[in-house]
């Protein structure tokens, strides 16, 4: 079991969700986040005063999947979240030690 965590551009969320649903992912956690990477920030202008905004809004998605799905999930996110522009985001994969479905008490693979 792995958690695939991806930071993506906000407007790509729907496409990514559709792609993940298509390959059999049943659940997804989404968080609105701010941060910067190579894109750094951008400039906003209010009444002519320029502000360097260094933290850009991004979407963080987290999806827990069995080992068999991990590569396809990563591929699906990579394919759909990519614009080719700087600032497309990153994907991280973590191992899960244990998973429990709260309602039933099922564990690990059954809980996903």
């Amino acid at each position, binding site marked *: 079991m792995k958690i695939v965590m991806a930071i993506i551009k906000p407007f790509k969320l729907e496409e990514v969700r559709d792609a993940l649903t298509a390959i059999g992912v049943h659940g997804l956690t989404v968080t609105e986040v701010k941060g910067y990477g190579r894109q750094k920030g951008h400039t*906003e*202008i*209010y*009444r*002519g*005063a*320029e*502000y360097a*905004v260094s933290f850009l809004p991004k979407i963080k998605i987290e999806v827990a999947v069995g080992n068999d799905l991990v590569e396809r999930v990563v591929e699906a996110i990579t394919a759909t979240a990519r614009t080719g522009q700087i600032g497309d985001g990153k994907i991280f994969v973590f191992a899960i030690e244990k998973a429990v479905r709260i309602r039933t008490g099922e564990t690990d693979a059954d809980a996903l």
Partner: protein
Amino acid sequence: MTFRTVLRAGSTGLALAALCAGTALAQTAAPEAPAAAAAALPNKGDTAWMLVSSLLVLFMTLPGLALFYGGLARSKNMLSVMSQITATAIVMCLIWVVYGYSLAFTSGGSLTSFVGSFSKAFLAGVTTDSTSDTFTKGVVIPEYVFICFQMTFAMITPALIVGGLVERMKFSALVLFVVLWGSFVYFPIAHMVWFSEGYLFTLGALDFAGGTVVHINAGIAALVGALVLGKRIGYGKELMTPHSLTMTFIGTAVLWVGWFGFNAGSNLEATAGAALAMINTFVATAGAGLGWLFIEWVVKGKPSLLGMLSGIVAGLVAVTPAAGLVGPMGAIVLGIVAGIVCFFFCTTVKNALGYDDSLDVFGVHGIGGIIGSIGTGIFVAPALGGVGVADYAMGEQVWKQFVAVVVAVLWSGVGSFILYKIVDVVVGLRVTSDQEREGLDIAEHGERAYNI
């Protein structure tokens, strides 16, 4: 009592006066005699228009100005901005009827060039029968509606100053300052400009709806306040972006509509003069919005909503002294000039000088008011489409306008400086740095604008 100008003695005005007197009174005999004027009855149309105008100007302050300013502040100070504007409005409302109206609009004896007396304190002697003169001989409006109309001006003017002081001034200090400023700066300047015995009135300086009294006055007070208070913590280093331009948009829209009460209402009668002020308040505003939009587009690369909104307010300010005096084409030119010049003051000049006039009260109201006041002297010329004044000479009129600007700048500048210093000694001007960082909403008012 309050002929702001003595220029509307044209044939239209006289004909209307005769008509009004005829229909309302059936008492047309000797309409020119002072005794007859005192006995004149208000026209219902004029009265209705002034009742509505008073409400329109109130609506400019609450919620118009509060939303306009609040949206430009950070979310942690939203309620503080709204509280300061609301408190200013209610405090001025009360001191206006207690002694403000009297100081502004009664004869002050030997001091009458500068200030009135306390003879109408607590509205002594005012009844439903008492009337105030308008620009037309023999045409009067109920004194109560004149008091209400002028009251709304006294409420909004100090509220404008709040924009230069936001996000750091203590609430108690602001309330104390407003009481002092109203008493020692606003009432005397209103008297000087609008009361028939006031210095600038007798000089012949033109100010149709309050370019000097309201906008230069407040703009300078805000600039002095920004300098005395000092910058906000983190100014120039941290992000201080407006928290809701949506609110600012709503506020601007309310201000524009309310401003028709301010400008067209200042005609004091429901006549063609009010209609002229109205069309000018449309077109000058549009011109200034366009001017700011394009200059910002050229200089900064993008046409911004806030740019248009700022231009709109700058245009409204600039046309205020000119509203009933210039022609629509002159008003457009005035607006475009105001939009462009105010843009440079809010960006280049402010950054170069480094003062933290947080919401650009000086850049928009001070500068816009000065452009409008000087411009009124130019575009009032009949050759440029204006209504003209008796014995008009452009150079002389512009000089009178300039004198009025200088008097307002000095009176407000020096007066405000002294009052800020007094308030600083009595209660202290600024909140503590911890309170400032936390935000004034929680620190001073114990409430939060958005619980999401």
